[in-house]
Each structure stands twice: as structure tokens, then as C-alpha cells.
């Protein structure tokens, strides 16, 4: 019977350094001695000489730096929806959210950057996550599966960690490609999944951080990156058992393994960033929906939800269309010529989608604050904008005071010097700096301004 390796002894489990078994020792030792058939064969089948604490720590450090950015930008996305108006999904999250604050309108590219970072980083990290999992996979088949209660609980949190990241990646990737094959609500799943993952991630980092530092120090990065394949040797046996018991010869250097993961990340980056860029570079997002332009000309930029899908009919948007403004008991109706006769303002603003893509266009229309004044609410607390759409999650959206009052917040009538196309919201749409695209309501029918006094 092969002698089992010394028990794991990371900082959290130092007490068991003696022989690695917690109480009741007879149980854990008995488990270790009853090796099911096949365990030894599996253990011998791990041959890669690259697996070891150093490589795991390198991949781990990248994730340690990048994942907090993904987590924070994800939570900011929730905040950008305006949870104070019950319009962030899921609506009922208890204390599991960032402290409440008004989503700013400046800088106007704020949401473009935060959500672009969230989605782009999420995609680019896929090879790093896969590399990290590859480097620790033998642990999954370890026998005994645990030597103490501490290990049982820690492995449970690892299930949450691995399940969490894979779940977030899978749901996110499906969402940005518009395939809702999972059959549950994306928001609910991705939001709560994020908290499960974040909890497990924080604990994992706290438990493993000392290990990570030791492992990184064990082999200087520069020297390691200069070592060719022929000179690549396995790391010395480690207490965690990452290093193979019977390693084979190296077919790739450690530099190669790091380069492979880095190269994969670079490939994905090159094929993804295009969806956040304007101009010819947009086309580089070859495999994503938003690398493509639906047409040419001033209205040829990406559409989110077509007029056909929204169910808005041509007779609703012809000359009979009227905009209704409400506020403080007053109702004002305007047709499109009347709106065009008002003071027009032009602003170059990005439209940034929650799905990570964005594009900057030049919008012309009436300032929302002018419309508020016209409705008799010079100091609005909020405004509820409703669309001609009959159904859909984003038929209406509430704007906060700062979003109504920003000088660049518009009810846009024209884009890039021409009338809005039907798919972009003709006769009129909202555009507000730094506001998620889904809240820049299209085919606007009504705006209801609430004054501060209305509460």
C-alpha cells in the first residue's frame, strides 16, 4: 500500500501537521486505509512535471488581481439600474447589495467602462480559470478525500468556489450571445451566484494567501521564464500533493504553460474588445453579435431590441404620435414638430449596453430638464419614462433627479444629423450620460415628472 502523503498543512490546517488527521482519528485513518480500486492508478496517471505550487500560484495571482474587478463591476451594474426605484433585478435581495447611492451621469463613459470591463475581463479570464483548474485537478481525486472535519468543510467551500465561477461564466457567456438555454431568470441566477462565488473566493484567498506567497518566492519569475523546456524539472514534492508522484518528461516549459494561458487570454481579448470600440476596429469582434453593424449610414450602429420585436406598429409612430408630459397635476401633449421647434441640444454620448458592448453617437433633441420645466416641475425628484411597447421588462424606466437634470440628458429626436431610425426609437428616445442602454427608453410615449414635494 502506498504511503499516503503528509497531510495538508496550509496555515489554516497547521494543527494537523503531526499526521494530518483530526478527530475522530480512527474514522479518518480508516477512510485513508480503505483505498477504493483505481485510486492508485489514477494517482500514478498524473504525469505532468509542470503541476506544482509555483504554477498554481502564478495562475492564482492573476485571478486574485482580476476577479475582484469583475465582482465590483458586476455589483456596480446592479447599482446602475437604480435599485432605489425597485428597477434592479432581482428586486428583492435583502442586505446582499452595495450601499445605496445615486448612479452618476459623469463621466459619461462611466458605464461603458465598468460594464465593458466586466464582460471583457470575464471572457478574457476563461483560459486563466481553466489553467488554474487544470493545475489543481489531481486534488479532486485525492484519497482520502478528507483527513479532518476542517478539510470536509473547506472542500465544500471549494465546490462553491468552482461551481460559482463556472456558473457565472456560463450564464454570462450565454446571456451576451442571447441564448437563454438555461431556462431560468438570468438576473436572479447571476446575481445570487455572484454572492455565493464571492464568499467562497474571499475565504479561499484568506486561507491560501500565505501558500501563494511562499510558492511565488520559491522560484524567481524571471529565472523561470528563461528556463527552456529541456531544462524544465518538476518542483520538489509539496505538502499539498500538487506535484506528480511519478512525473514524466516535460513537453512544455513553465514559460510555455504561462504563455499558453496568456496567449489564449490575448486571443479572446482581441476577439472581444471590438464590441466596445467604434470605427473599423469594431469588426474585430468576429464571433460576437456586437462586432457586426446592422446597416450603413448615420443609423447603422448596433440595435438593442428591434421595433418589430418590441411590437411597436408603424401607425403608432406616424404623424398621429404625441408625447405626453405629466407633472404636478398638469398634462402637456406635444407632437414631433412641436418638439423640434423647442431648443435643440446636441451631445456625443455612448450608448452602453448591460451586455458589455457600447458605441458613441451624436444625439440631438430636447433637454429632459426643459421638458420637466414645461410640465411645471422645475425641480424634479424623478421621472418615469414609458414606451409605446406593450410588454417587456424595460417598457418603463425611472430616472433619478441627477439624470433628468444633466445638461446632456436628452429626449433625442435625431442621431448623427438625421431622424432616428425605427429600430433606434423613432419618433423619440431617451439618452442619458452613463445610463445603461436598457434604461434609455425608445419609442417614448409619456414622461411623468415627480416633484420633490410629491415625495
Amino acid at each position, binding site marked *: 500500500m502506498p504511503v499516503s502523503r503528509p497531510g495538508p498543512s496550509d496555515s*489554516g*490546517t*497547521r*494543527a*494537523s501537521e503531526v499526521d494530518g*488527521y*483530526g*478527530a475522530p482519528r480512527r474514522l479518518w485513518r480508516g477512510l485513508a486505509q480503505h483505498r477504493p480500486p483505481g485510486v492508485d492508478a489514477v494517482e500514478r496517471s498524473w504525469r505532468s512535471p509542470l503541476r506544482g505550487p509555483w504554477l498554481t500560484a502564478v495562475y492564482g495571482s492573476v485571478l486574485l488581481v482580476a476577479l475582484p474587478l469583475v465582482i465590483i463591476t458586476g455589483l456596480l451594474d446592479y447599482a446602475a439600474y437604480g435599485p432605489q426605484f425597485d428597477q434592479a433585478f432581482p428586486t428583492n435581495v435583502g442586505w*446582499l447589495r452595495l450601499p445605496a447611492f445615486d448612479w452618476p451621469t459623469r463621466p459619461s463613459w462611466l458605464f461603458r467602462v465598468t460594464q465593458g470591463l466586466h464582460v471583457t475581463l470575464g471572457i478574457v479570464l*476563461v*483560459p486563466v480559470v481553466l489553467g488554474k483548474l487544470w493545475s489543481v485537478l489531481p486534488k*479532486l481525486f485525492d484519497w482520502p478525500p478528507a*483527513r*479532518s*472535519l*476542517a478539510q470536509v468543510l473547506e472542500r465544500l*467551500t471549494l*465546490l*462553491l468556489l468552482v*461551481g*460559482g465561477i*463556472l*456558473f457565472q461564466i456560463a450564464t454570462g*457567456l*450565454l446571456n451576451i*450571445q*442571447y*441564448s*437563454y*438555454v*438555461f*431556462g*431560468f431568470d438570468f438576473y*436572479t*441566477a447571476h446575481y*445570487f451566484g455572484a*454572492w*455565493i462565488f464571492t*464568499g467562497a473566493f*474571499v*475565504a479561499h484567498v484568506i*486561507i491560501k494567501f500565505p501558500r501563494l506567497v511562499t510558492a511565488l518566492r520559491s522560484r524567481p519569475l524571471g529565472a523561470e521564464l528563461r528556463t527552456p*523546456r529541456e531544462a524544465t524539472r518538476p518542483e520538489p514534492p509539496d505538502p499539498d500533493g500538487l506535484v506528480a508522484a511519478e512525473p514524466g518528461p516535460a*513537453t*512544455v516549459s513553465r514559460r*510555455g504553460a504561462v504563455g*499558453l494561458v496568456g*496567449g*489564449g487570454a490575448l*486571443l*479572446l481579448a482581441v*476577439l472581444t474588445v471590438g464590441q466596445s470600440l467604434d470605427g473599423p476596429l469594431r469588426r474585430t469582434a*468576429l*464571433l*460576437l453579435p456586437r462586432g*457586426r453593424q446592422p446597416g450603413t449610414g448615420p443609423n447603422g450602429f*448596433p*440595435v438593442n*431590441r428591434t421595433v418589430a*420585436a418590441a411590437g411597436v406598429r408603424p401607425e403608432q409612430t406616424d404623424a398621429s404620435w404625441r408625447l405626453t408630459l405629466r407633472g404636478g397635476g398638469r398634462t402637456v401633449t406635444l407632437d414631433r414638430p412641436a418638439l423640434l421647434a423647442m431648443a435643440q441640444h446636441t451631445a456625443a454620448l455612448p450608448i452602453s449596453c448591460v451586455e458589455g458592448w457600447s458605441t458613441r453617437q451624436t444625439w440631438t433633441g430636447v433637454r429632459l430638464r426643459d421638458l420637466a420645466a414645461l410640465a411645471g416641475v422645475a425641480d424634479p425628484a424623478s421621472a418615469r419614462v414609458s414606451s409605446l411597447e406593450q410588454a417587456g421588462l424595460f417598457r418603463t424606466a425611472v430616472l433619478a433627479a441627477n439624470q433628468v437634470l444633466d445638461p446632456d440628458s436628452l429626449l433625442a429626436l435625431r442621431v448623427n444629423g438625421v431622424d432616428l431610425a425605427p429600430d433606434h426609437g423613432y419618433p423619440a428616445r431617451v439618452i442619458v450620460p452613463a445610463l445603461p442602454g436598457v434604461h434609455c427608453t425608445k419609442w417614448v410615449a409619456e414622461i411623468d415628472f415627480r416633484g420633490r414635494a410629491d415625495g
Partner: protein
Amino acid sequence: MAERDRPTEGRAGRLRAGYGAAPWHLLLVTAVIVLAGWVALRLAQEATFGRMLLWFVGAVIAHDLVLFPVYASADRALRAVARDRVTLLNYLRVPALGTALLFLVYSPGILRWGETTHEAATGLTQRPYLVRWVVLSAALFLLSGLAYLLRRRQASRQRSESA
């Protein structure tokens, strides 16, 4: 190891020895499990909770027991083909991994999962992605093949120079 090395003095020491780690470890992992349990209880009221759970656990199983064995076996097959020509092996591995990675990340578009939702959102069909993926993959193999030939030429020139 001598008995005195065992940090069993005091209540904390006994906890350490029995539990298998320091008290803060117990606190930390318990907090994580309680958080996850609280979230699960909240979600349990959703009609689709079963599906979410299935996808969460399924993602781990799909990675550990499907994806990993598949790519490990594919690599084994490649190694059998290349035998001891390690350079050739790596010039095959890199484009193969690139192709697989692109498929993994962009498969919803490539396989046209969600034609109607994609078209409703963007006004475009999912038709181009498959061809683009095939072309990109072919380009990866082509580039790698060219790099391999170049490298062999260089190596043989060096050999003839030093001969």
C-alpha cells in the same frame, strides 16, 4: 514526532487538534457555507430553483468529469501521433487549444442557440459565426504550420552550418 510538538494545550489547541485547523478557519468556512445556504433558501422559492442548482453542480461535473477527460485524452492522442517529436506536438497543440477555446466561449453563436432572441435583440441572424470560427481555426493551424516549417528550416540550416 514527539507528543510535545502537538499544539494541544488549552481549549484552542484541543479545537485545532480535533477539528484539524485553527479556530478562524472554522469561522471562515462556516460563514461561507451559511451565506450560500441563506442564498439557496431564498432561491428555493423560485420555480426554476432546481434548474439553477442543476446548472451550478452540473458546471462542476461538466468541467471535471467531461471537459477535462476529453481534453486530456485528446492530448494523449496527439502525443501518440507526434511520438518523440515534441516540437511538432506543440505546434499542433497550440492551434488545437485555440480552436477549442474559441468554440467553448463562442459556441452559443456558432451552434445558433437562440436564433429568435438573437434576431429580436440585434436584427441579425446567427448564421455567420460558424463559418468565421472555422476560418479562424484554419488560420490558427495554418500560422502554426508555417511557423513550424520555418523553425525546421532554421534548425536544419544551423545543423548544416555547424557540421
